[in-house]
């Protein structure tokens, strides 16, 4: 079936991952394409809106998403009961398929695509996951480790793992090992801090960013990465850090 068509899917499971995040297992009623790493779906809640959600896993045709409530649609999605129906379109975006060893740096729901990447890369992937406190960490490390990826946790209050930010911890990791690729997903302020630090070190950084995704197919233009010809739904969501700088500064409220 074509990427842009709406496929109904049943919610099979809704698992609490942390105080702020739920993992949903969705079973489409018709076959859909296998997602690549960092690709995403448009998830429609009938009666509400359609929102972009990264593929956090894929097994036997079932699609996993990790939901962090932010507004009306994500709140309802996070509370959806097994048996209920959603609509899916996708997968959208360009798969990010790095060779060699990969260091992923994630904050908040930005960890979602790394859970899927862990399944594909196994021990080739190290993830630095940053959160405010232990309650936000929950079972995220276990989901990543299940497929052999290495996990390092940083909390701002030091309640688990390293005390500090994911950026501080990532810099320590980079001091001791030299991965082939560094890719990050999380809040704009975190991505900027990381980008600036890595620029100083001369390490190339790929970042997964969020712009407003509406059509997913390159028609409406709402996902344009400002100042570039790139559309997030076609060429993203992973870009070279320098291409995202203007947008990140805007999104972080710097300009």
């Amino acid at each position, binding site marked *: 079936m074509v990427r842009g068509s709406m496929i109904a899917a049943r919610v099979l499971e809704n698992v609490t991952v942390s105080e702020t995040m739920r993992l949903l297992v969705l079973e489409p009623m018709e076959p859909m394409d296998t997602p690549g790493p960092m690709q995403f779906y448009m998830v429609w809640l009938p009666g509400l*809106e359609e929102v972009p959600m990264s593929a956090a896993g894929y097994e036997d045709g079932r699609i996993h998403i990790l939901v962090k409530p932010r507004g009306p649609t994500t709140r309802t999605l996070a509370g959806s009961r097994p048996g209920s129906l959603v609509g899916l379109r996708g997968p959208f975006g360009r798969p990010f398929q790095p060779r060699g060893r990969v260091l992923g740096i994630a904050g908040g729901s930005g960890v979602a695509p790394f859970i899927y990447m862990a399944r594909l890369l196994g021990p080739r992937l190290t993830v630095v996951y940053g959160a405010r406190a232990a309650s936000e960490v929950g079972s995220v490390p276990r989901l990543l480790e299940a497929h052999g990826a290495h996990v390092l946790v940083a909390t701002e209050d030091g309640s688990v793992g390293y005390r500090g930010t994911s950026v501080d911890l990532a810099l320590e990791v980079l001091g001791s090992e030299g991965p082939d690729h560094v890719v990050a997903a999380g809040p704009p302020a975190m991505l900027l801090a990381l980008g600036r630090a890595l620029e100083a070190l001369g390490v190339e950084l790929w970042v997964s960013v969020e712009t407003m995704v509406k059509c997913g197919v390159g028609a409406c233009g709402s996902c344009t990465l400002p100042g570039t*010809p790139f559309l997030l739904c076609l060429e993203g969501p992973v870009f070279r850090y320098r291409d995202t700088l203007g947008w990140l500064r805007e999104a972080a409220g710097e300009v």
Partner: protein
Amino acid sequence: MPPLETTVTGIKLRNPLMNASGILGSRPEHVKRLVQAGISAFVSKSITPEPREGHPTPIIVELPGEALLNSVGLANPGPAAIPGLVDAARRAGIPVIISVAGTQPRDFLYVAEAAEKAGASAVELNLSCPHAEGYGLEIGMDPSAVRRVVGEVSSVLSIPIWAKLGVVDRLIHVAGTALDAGAGALVLINTLRAMAIDVYTRRPVLGHGVGGLSGRPIHPVAVRAVYEVYREYGAEIVGVGGVFDWKTAAELILAGARAIQLGTSLVLRGERVVAEILEGLERYMSETGARGLAELVGAAVR
């Protein structure tokens, strides 16, 4: 004259292919993408006097048979964006057509004047959007409203006016009215009012319920519309609707279109579709001994 060159209302186009309004076209960043694809003129997203958020998502779904159903709802940045769009197209060296939408004559005039002032090559009056209440099709199906809108804009503007019409019952009459009132060219057709329902959730899929159908399935409807209007008036026509390859483009040209706009095929096939169609048209012309596009325009009409 290179074989694929054409003109619409005196505007010289190095090939007959433009993007259709609403396929990107709301930001200067989009111009670069479309120019790289090979279009000969840039057509903006329809601009209204005030910015619009558009309809709630889902705003688009793909349907079988290379079709799209959309209810973007004329989401657009408003007239403030026009100078940036015009500059970007000018810098790329191609003509720029600003598409204009509104609910009443003075809305159209307000945006059209902004377009002329910014240096647009022409305006395209959207009299045919099927899914934004009060805009588009509700005007385009009423000959007296068409006369007022086109008449008011043409009494003030000196750049060419293209009127974009949808499929309505008395299309020939409406087309004649638009030409009479001062439209230099007609753009035919817009999407067709349509709906899709998800059978499991038992709901219309689009956030807005009703949307506009585009792509392959509407191509024969576009061919008929262009043919009938060309036969009646011999007018300058830009053909739009389900053009996916050189053959569907050639059909519209033979029906009377001097130029073609691409919407759904740009989305579903990607930007390479422009080069593919141009190569195909060139091959078709040399195979059939046509020296220029002008020979083919309306050649099927009798």
